[in-house]
């Protein structure tokens, strides 16, 4: 039975570089030189799950997504 881990992913087509996600979750999200989010690799740590969900909810374009992936996938 594979465990599922929570991952953050950005839909780059919807993203318009508002940058709210990086403000709300600086531990996992930084911005490139053009203002678009770079998401840290790996699953969302347990302590940041709530913050991650909040960032997803507050993206003005709904471009940030939460995905459940198998624990052993990248």
């Amino acid at each position, binding site marked *: 039975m594979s465990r599922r881990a929570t991952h953050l992913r950005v839909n780059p087509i919807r993203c318009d570089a508002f940058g*709210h996600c990086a403000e*709300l979750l600086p531990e996992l999200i930084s911005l490139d030189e053009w203002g678009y989010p770079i998401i840290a690799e790996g699953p969302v740590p347990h302590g940041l799950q709530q913050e991650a969900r909040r960032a997803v*909810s*507050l993206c*003005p374009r*709904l471009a940030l997504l939460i995905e459940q992936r198998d624990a052993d996938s990248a």
Partner: protein
Amino acid sequence: MNHVLTSGPVWYLMRASCVVSLLLLSAVSALGVATTSRLRPARLPRFVTLALHRNVSLLAVAFLSLHVLTAVIDPDATVRAVAVILPLPSSRYGLWLGLGALALDLIIALIVTSLLRQHLAPRIWRALHYLAYLAWPVALVHGAGIGTDSGAMWMLVVDAACVAAFGASVALRLLTAPSPASKHLSPPRVRVAP
């Protein structure tokens, strides 16, 4: 008719909730624009997020519901329940009540589409959300035309403040619109070899 519901308290509650609703709706539009504007300074307070915009809009809906409910149950106001959402001609209030119904319809549409946003195509949600810029003036005109306090000084001050807030929102939105065109660049110049 229910004697508990004298025209006094219900009537005043309706008018009070009208004013509070207008103030809150103006705040909602200002917050909506401020949160998503490109001019948003880094020093904007951290709590000015979409969550605030959404929470204030729900508060506005609460007061709006109170306003609508009191208008219907008030024996003096003679507003039929159906007239609240259907802009029907009214012998007593004429056009102004219809405008109120229109404003309420638009606001209901805004709330419902935003709650269902995940299931709508982004372009459709966005187009419908622009109805906010229509709902607000309609609500203002409804209040100005139908309200008994319209001429009072304090009401005019409130109106002016709300118009200023809304006007500023619109101006800010027009000036700093984040549009899809921001991802377009002219094709790079193909330099000829040295």
